[in-house]
């Protein structure tokens, strides 16, 4: 079974802090994704990566960056956390891009910025 592991379940950070959210998958998937989930808005794509050291902006990349130095690890970085980045963050991976094969999700990191 594919496992996508997000390093933290809950995080509380202060405004202005630099925040790292880590995600690791164990199935050698090429594609990895970061979404944020907010009530009434569903899931919105922040960034994705289809190969090591490759990254593409999603729908809401402002205020975020990503890093993919190894195939299994995809990090989301909040350069200077703000209260409007309080949200649930979900990492996902897939063998083929987007709809061709299912996304496998981690359990999420609930980030609170105070």
């Amino acid at each position, binding site marked *: 079974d594919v496992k*996508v592991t997000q390093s933290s379940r809950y995080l509380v950070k202060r405004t202005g802090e630099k925040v790292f959210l880590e995600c690791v998958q164990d199935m050698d998937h090429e594609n990895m994704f970061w979404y944020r989930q907010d009530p*009434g*808005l*569903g*899931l*919105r*794509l922040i960034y994705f990566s289809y190969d090591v050291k490759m990254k593409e902006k999603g729908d809401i990349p402002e205020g975020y960056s990503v890093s993919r130095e190894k195939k299994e690890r995809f990090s989301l970085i909040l350069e200077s956390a703000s209260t409007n980045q309080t949200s649930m963050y*979900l990492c*996902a991976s897939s063998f083929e*891009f*987007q*709809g*061709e094969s*299912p*996304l*496998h*999700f*981690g*359990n*999420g990191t609930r980030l609170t910025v105070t």
Partner: protein
Amino acid sequence: AQSVTQPDIHITVSEGASLELRCNYSYGATPYLFWYVQSPGQGLQLLLKYFSGDTLVQGIKGFEAEFKRSQSSFNLRKPSVHWSDAAEYFCAVVPHNTDKLIFGTGTRLQVFP
């Protein structure tokens, strides 16, 4: 505007009752269609998907969905709901000639004993 719509934010059913969750899309050509489920405290899990062919699709956990081109709909159904089905359900589409997965806003299902 192109979109995927789940008109019901919250649905409550009794255990053993039938269930239908609605999903409509507004794209010119038929997109790829998906249903995902998110149990409390978990990530999302794929229930079923439709690419082409038979318009009635069977998924995991006893769910099925029917694609209706004339109604631009892909509604999720289950004949008899179990308490463990309480979760949030997301419809998603990959529009034709794109490789971008777009999620609906979700429907939260509550099941009463």
